């Protein structure tokens, strides 16, 4: 067998469910944190665009903090199914905020940019 196939055999023996769960939790926390930062920044940008025109964004921040509170709970999940359900809730909330913001704020953002670019 070649080098890679030997590596695969090693993975097949040593990448146990326990190791998988630990690595999944670490990765889940890392990408959920990235999502929180990303959505938070998007809301901040929307806030800059909204200055002097519309009301401040409130509910989307609340939903984002809710997903932020849920994120550390990923560490306490016991099975893959529990992790998947919790991760789906967290990602679902963040994704909904992201899509809603992109759709609702699109025109405002473009007007803001258009003003600076002159198109």
């Amino acid at each position, binding site marked *: *067998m*070649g080098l*890679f*196939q030997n590596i*695969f*055999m090693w*993975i*097949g*023996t*040593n*990448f*146990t469910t326990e190791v*998988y769960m630990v*690595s*999944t939790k670490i*990765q889940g926390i*890392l*990408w959920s944190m*990235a*999502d929180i*930062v*990303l959505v938070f*920044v*998007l809301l*901040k*940008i929307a806030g*800059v*665009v909204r200055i002097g025109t519309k009301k401040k964004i409130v509910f989307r921040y609340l939903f984002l903090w809710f997903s932020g509170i849920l994120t550390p709970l990923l560490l306490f999940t016991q099975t893959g199914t529990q992790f998947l359900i919790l991760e789906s809730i967290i990602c679902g909330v963040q*994704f909904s905020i*992201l*899509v809603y913001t*992109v759709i609702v704020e*699109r025109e405002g953002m*473009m007007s*803001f*940019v258009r003003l*600076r*670019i002159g*198109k």
Partner: protein
Amino acid sequence: MALFWTFAEGLILIYMRWGVLFLRRGEGRQRIFLIFCVIIFFFLICLMFGGENYFGRFIDLERGHNLKAYRWGLWNFFCTLWVILEGIIMVYVLALYEILTPHLKKSDLIIKKEKRRRTRSGITYGIPVLIISLFSLYIFYEYNLLSIIDKNVIEDKGIYRISLFYIRICGLFWILFEWIVAYVGIKTYRLMKES
């Protein structure tokens, strides 16, 4: 779930592409691209729901580990697809940032032209490189896994673990791309706030 997340990622990608086209050309029409996306998505639906029947005509899926290998191969294919979509979104976010920077910094025309040139090359080469390299990784991984299965030296549990490991590799790319997008987002926000 695989199709839902593909759709979700695709939706964000379409919006990002619209933004880049709009800023570059003054309008963001992408009818041909949308038709292309719908066709691809239709093929993905067919693959998801009819793939076993279709490939079952050519491969005996009931024999040995074939069915297990096929199902994991399909799931890992979708994982690769999500990472590719996320990577393309990252390229478009970088492009948006490069288009916006000179305008928000109010620098001169030469810098503007330079930035636009760089953005164009970033999209021109960045996206094909991403697609080719990540699909190559997928094919390379699946090829090696199938070679081991073919030699009958691995059990079901081994296939399961090797396939899960691939998802963790995809996870690394996913995290990297997401943090790059988040970082560029922070930089864009700062620029917008200062402008």
